[in-house]
């Protein structure tokens, strides 16, 4: 879904995140703990979460590059994927930077956690806007298509529902993160991960169901014809 140029740019940002994480952990007295300004100590491995998340998104977008669709359908997706991957990686790089700067113990006039929160919110809004736009893009069959081809009827319907649920989920996460106290915000991470995993399972099951439904309809139509 994204071209090689975008992948290279994103990979450069991910490499920068990895270098920054390794550099910061090397500098720590106790390499397991990262003490952030005005906050509870965090596990230092958290620094690797940023490049990991970026790599996951960029990898997923790049994996679809060989999708079975004509160029006219792929082109809007390439544009969408390019802006999403670059802004996502840049946003996470900035967030990681804020975390590192906050852990250096520098005397700063601004509260680092407030900057981090604002950046996180901005990143979430960018992702939200990207997901909001997804159903507007032309449907094409993915390389990984459990349940077979969904076709022009069930495919867009599947994408619309999936995007709607993702938008609601993201709004809920944003609302929770904004409403909870700063020290509590990290505690929602396991719940978010569990919800994301459940979403993937549901999405797969629903796709299988729609695929089966389409096959049955095709068989019925074929039966009527013969």
């Amino acid at each position, binding site marked *: 879904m994204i071209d090689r140029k975008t992948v290279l740019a994103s990979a450069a940002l991910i490499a920068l995140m990895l270098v920054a994480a390794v550099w910061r952990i090397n500098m720590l007295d106790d390499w397991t703990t990262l003490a952030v300004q005005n906050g509870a100590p965090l596990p230092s491995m958290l620094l690797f979460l940023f490049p990991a998340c970026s790599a996951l998104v960029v990898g997923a977008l790049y994996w679809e590059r060989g999708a079975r669709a004509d160029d006219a359908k792929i082109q809007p997706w390439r544009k969408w994927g390019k802006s999403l991957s670059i802004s996502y990686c840049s946003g996470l790089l900035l967030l990681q930077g804020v975390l590192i700067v906050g852990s250096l113990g520098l005397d700063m006039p601004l509260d680092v956690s407030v900057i981090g929160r604002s950046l996180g919110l901005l990143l979430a809004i960018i992702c939200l806007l990207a*997901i*909001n*736009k*997804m*159903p*507007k893009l032309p449907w094409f069959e993915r390389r990984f298509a459990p349940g077979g081809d969904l076709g*022009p*009827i069930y495919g*867009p*319907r599947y994408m*619309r529902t999936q*995007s*709607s649920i993702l*938008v609601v989920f993201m709004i809920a996460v944003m609302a929770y993160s904004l409403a909870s106290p700063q020290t509590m915000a990290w505690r929602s991470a396991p719940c978010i991960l569990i919800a994301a995993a459940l979403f993937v399972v549901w999405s797969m099951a629903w796709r299988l169901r729609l695929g089966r439904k389409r096959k049955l309809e095709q068989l019925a139509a074929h039966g009527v014809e013969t």
Partner: protein
Amino acid sequence: MNLVFKALSDPTRRRILQLLRERPMTAGHIAEHFDFAKPTLSAHFAVLREADLIESEKIGTSITYSLKLSVLEDALLSFAETVGIGVRSSGRLKPATRAR
């Protein structure tokens, strides 16, 4: 965004979008659900296309329309449908409702 609000404020156009929610349809199939003259429907299609809510594809001699709604636009459509925006001011919904 103004174009989107304008497009969604009319019950007939909302009905067209509801029909396209089910599946992509040709102009002829959509017209079967309404008692309007074809130029009137074409004008509605033009407004929807201008607002980027539908897209058309010419296959042979017929034009197939399909939905092109973002999540927010979809939510706005549901909201306008629930509230019934423009229903009182427009007496033209009757044919579409009867066809339902």
